[in-house]
């Protein structure tokens, strides 16, 4: 995503501070380039909110991605603990130390050591050690991890505060970009403890780790960057061993997609005609309908069309097992098993309950990155709604959608409506504005018979047919027929017949009777 970052950087107006890329996925986007270069940024959060991981990733990326050596000043965890704790992320701090790309200043208290205080003192030794470490390896990045742990080491907290201010000013003078992490006791309220924010108030980032529907949800918020632009508000992020920290920038990227004129087939020829010649290649299609209306069939046709044209397809199943999906497909004449063997199809089944939505998003992005499909389908999208609050669901959909569009991939999501006829679901209201095309599948009760109706509710950027067409499903798939004539109110679930139509029908009835 680096090109996006570059664009942000060139967006900066003269007079704005230069940004230093953190290399943390998504963060540089919400920070519009990175951290204010040569300045200190305070990262505050409660215990377990990910402060140290973010700080260490900033430093490790500096060494591995930008060839910028870094210094860790650790106040709480011993160097050995730090090295061990981040091994699983693939950050080899020991190697960096050996290569003189990293230096660690150990400012943790020695266990069991009671320091005796006799008269006045300052922390010049610590200052000298930090400056020495920076000079020795030519560091560009510095982190001060858990400065709060410095306070209990000394009886006079005003000395500590003064000395931290001195360190802060000294680092600025040396031109290094610094991250200071500070523990908060609560998710809301003041920035941090000990009054540290008083002197590093220019740039503040807050991490939160709230309980949301019985699931932990991490968010990051850039409270302020003095003299530098940044995105406002909270953004979700995840931490995992493969990618480290991943910030999900959501709407920050939503409006920057290029659009394509290339059309692809939905797999149903008549539906393509209704859409004015097929779906746009980089569009997101939402198929919405009650249970049994043929959503999974639509997905199958869409995947079949991809396989037919030799394009890779990736299917995320969230309600059915692989076996069920395979069986359904073969009933409709699609051999998904063979397609998977041929490497043109991949089916990933993950129940929504197994992890948080943020983690789902990361996993799905990873699957897309690894398989590089031309088409993605999610059956069903609404299943993910069960396990989340509305807000994180919307963020999930935006995150996935923008990723898919960004790669110029076609996306098809299904949404199960709770009402058999008519009505709208939460998913529809939540994600309808994000999708480019909405296809509604509805049951229609006409003269005591359940029939099915399909309409293209919206299609961005092109003409489409507005009729509600009847369709039938048989062993060969979906067949779209003539529009329902003389019936209205289908979408509300209460169809009514126009008088003229009824009259003709009655005429027909009599004709039929007179004939018989």
């Amino acid at each position, binding site marked *: 995503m680096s090109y996006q970052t570059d664009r942000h950087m060139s967006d900066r107006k003269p007079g704005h501070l230069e940004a230093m890329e953190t290399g943390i996925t998504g963060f540089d986007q919400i920070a519009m380039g990175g951290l204010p270069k040569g300045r200190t940024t305070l990262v505050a959060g409660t215990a377990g909110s990910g402060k140290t991981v973010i700080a260490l990733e900033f430093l490790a990326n500096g060494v591995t991605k930008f060839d910028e050596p870094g210094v860790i000043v650790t106040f709480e965890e011993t160097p050995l603990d730090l090295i061990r704790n981040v091994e699983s992320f693939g950050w080899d701090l020991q190697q960096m130390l050996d290569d003189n790309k990293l230096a660690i200043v150990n*400012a*943790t208290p020695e266990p069991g050591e009671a320091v*005796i205080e*006799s008269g*006045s*003192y300052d922390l010049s030794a610590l200052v*000298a050690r930090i400056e020495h470490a920076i000079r020795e390896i030519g560091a560009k990045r510095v982190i001060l991890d858990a400065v709060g742990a410095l306070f*209990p080491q000394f*009886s006079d907290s005003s000395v500590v505060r003064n000395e931290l201010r001195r360190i802060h000013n000294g680092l600025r003078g040396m031109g290094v970009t610094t991250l200071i992490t500070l523990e908060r006791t609560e998710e809301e309220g003041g920035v941090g403890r000990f009054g540290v924010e008083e002197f590093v108030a220019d740039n503040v980032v807050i991490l939160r780790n709230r309980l949301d529907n019985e699931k932990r949800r991490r968010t990051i918020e850039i409270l302020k960057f003095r003299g530098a632009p940044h995105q406002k508000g909270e953004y979700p992020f995840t931490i995992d061993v493969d990618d480290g920290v991943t910030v999900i920038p959501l709407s920050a990227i939503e409006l920057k997609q290029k659009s394509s004129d290339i059309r692809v087939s939905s797999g149903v020829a008549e539906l393509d005609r209704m859409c004015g010649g097929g779906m746009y290649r980089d569009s997101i299609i939402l198929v919405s309908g009650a249970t049994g209306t043929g959503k999974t069939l639509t997905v199958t046709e869409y995947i079949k069309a991809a396989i037919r044209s030799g394009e890779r397809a990736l299917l995320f199943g969230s309600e059915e097992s692989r076996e069920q999906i395979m069986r359904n497909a073969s009933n409709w004449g699609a051999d998904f098993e063979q397609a998977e063997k041929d490497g043109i199809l991949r089916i990933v089944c993950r129940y929504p309950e197994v992890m948080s939505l943020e983690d789902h998003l990361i996993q799905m992005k990873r699957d897309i990155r690894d398989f590089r499909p031309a088409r993605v389908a999610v059956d069903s999208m609404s299943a993910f709604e069960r396990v989340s609050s509305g807000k994180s669901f919307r963020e999930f959909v935006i995150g996935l959608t923008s990723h898919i569009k960004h790669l110029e991939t076609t996306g098809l999501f299904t949404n199960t409506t709770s009402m058999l006829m008519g009505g709208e679901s939460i998913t529809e209201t939540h994600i309808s504005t994000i999708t480019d095309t909405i296809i509604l599948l509805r049951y229609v009760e006409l003269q005591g018979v359940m029939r099915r109706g399909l309409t293209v509710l919206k299609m961005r950027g092109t003409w489409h047919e507005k009729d509600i067409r009847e369709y039938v499903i048989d062993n060969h798939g979906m067949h779209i027929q003539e529009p329902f004539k003389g019936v209205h109110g289908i979408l509300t679930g209460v169809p009514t017949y126009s008088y003229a139509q009824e009259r003709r029908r009655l005429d027909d009835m009599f004709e039929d009777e007179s004939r018989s």
Partner: protein
Amino acid sequence: MIYKLRLYVTGRTHNSLRAIENLRRVCEEDLRGRYEIEVIDVLEHPKLAENERIMATPTLVKKLPVPVRKIIGDLSDRDKVLFGLDLSPFDIAGENQSEANGGA
């Protein structure tokens, strides 16, 4: 028994000079003939400070006899210095403890 003492200071600041002076006085009065003092400027030898994890200056490190102990400050409180050097005639541990943790 020889006392091996190391005093970390920063340049020639007031605190540094006072600490050197105070230490010399205590040693002459209570350890005459059985002490060695090494004064180290952290600005010149930051690596040594790093190895001994010195945070504050002045810091007096009693290297011998064991246990190793650190006393920070300009050493103006003579009783605390004596306590830190295990030369205290009476136990002031309780008082010291409460002050060491008082500001946390």
